């Protein structure tokens, strides 16, 4: 009797420890996100026959772009994303160019700087591994619009200029279909920074790795991240 009670207690301890270990990888990514309350956003380019304003649902956005140190954890856990192993169809030859080795940043790369020279496929894979996703163009532009920029930039290192979005290709499609008169169909022709970002996204291919292009992750507000990670294993 005594023995079996002890056994069960031990079992419970072991199982609890196991479950905690499981959730550890998820919770590690949880605290750095900011709630972006939903609202209306005016896309730079209008769609024919649609109202100009678009509603963006509330979501969480990482307070800072993914760092080299964080990305290192990802490549440790996913060997197919190491510098020497990545497939060219998913990342061009500049992938992690400044890193010294597969699992070594080297002297010139700071652990807390945003990771750059990562492709869209790599950024997307990281986001899913972290139980998150890439923000959409609308979400990104909405979060960085005037009202919210202070909140995010406080924690933002200024090194990356551009960030991947889930549907950069979609903005690409809109922009190219609206391309005829450059800025004529834009909602705010004076928004120079947004023009730059849209034209930059327009020039991207999903396996491009560029030195001023990083990413951060987003997440819906109703998603149980722990469950999501378990279900994707």
């Amino acid at each position, binding site marked *: *009797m*005594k023995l079996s009670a002890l056994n069960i207690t031990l079992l419970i301890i072991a199982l609890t420890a196991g479950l905690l270990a499981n959730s550890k990888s998820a919770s590690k990514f949880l605290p750095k996100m900011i709630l972006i309350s939903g609202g209306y956003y005016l896309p730079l380019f209008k769609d024919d026959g649609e109202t100009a304003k678009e509603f963006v649902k509330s979501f969480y956005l990482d307070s800072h772009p993914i760092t080299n140190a964080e990305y290192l954890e990802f490549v440790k856990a996913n060997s197919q994303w190491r510098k020497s192993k990545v497939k060219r*169809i998913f990342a061009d030859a500049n992938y992690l160019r400044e890193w010294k080795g597969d699992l070594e940043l080297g002297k010139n790369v700071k652990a807390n700087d945003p990771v750059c020279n990562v492709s869209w496929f790599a950024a*997307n894979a990281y986001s899913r591994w972290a139980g998150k996703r890439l923000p959409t163009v609308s979400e990104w532009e909405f979060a960085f619009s005037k009202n919210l920029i202070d909140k995010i930039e406080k924690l933002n290192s200024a090194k990356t200029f551009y960030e991947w979005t*889930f549907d950069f290709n979609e903005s690409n499609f*809109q922009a190219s279909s609206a391309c005829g008169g450059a800025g004529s169909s834009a909602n705010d022709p004076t928004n120079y920074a947004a023009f730059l970002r849209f034209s930059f996204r327009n020039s991207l291919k999903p396996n491009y790795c560029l030195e001023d292009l990083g990413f951060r992750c987003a997440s819906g507000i109703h998603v149980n991240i722990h469950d999501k990670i*378990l279900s994707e294993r």
Partner: protein
Amino acid sequence: MKNYLIAFIPAALLALAAFTYVDVVNGNSSKQGNQIQSLQTRSTAGDKEDACCKVEEGTGNHSDKSIYQLKSVWKDQDGNSVELKIFAGKKIVLAMIYTSCPTACPVIVNNMQKLEAVIPQKELKKCHFVLISIDPQRDTPSRLKQYAVEKQLDMRRWTLLTGSKNNVAELAELIGFRYKKNSNGNFIHSNLITFLDEDGVIKNQSEGLGQSSNVLLSILNK
């Protein structure tokens, strides 16, 4: 003894709960494992490689430029879970479409059928036609099956797939297909037929809707 019992009952309940939880978690993951394994068996039929390890690697022996490097799992029109690499070994004629499309997609499918009709019988055995939905919400496997019947697709040579939003985005990026959902639920999208070689490398693409079957045949044979 009584004290033991008091301590034992909640402990036993906890253990039971923990076991149930672990069962659920394991049950799910082993189910997924089985799906992928059965797929592996299918895709590598006649291939002696160990199915489990190939899943780990996720790449098989395909070239770095092959779209079969994608590990995403899709559902076909019969509800089977499949990876794109099941198509390895065949020449693939592929289009991304959605079945509720009132305009361009029916033309693309029709063009592919016209192409199918002019490929010589001997060549046809080496070809397979794949339609991939960009509308996961509406295009369930059963809807795809219904579409195949409506369009009278020859299911010996055609497969229809649907997958997650992420699957669709990744594949679209790889083949350079552009699409955007409108507020009315329909899509604006590229009109694109993609030709893959036996290894899943893009050999050619045809953009637009107006190509005759003979033009498409010459593109296939290029």
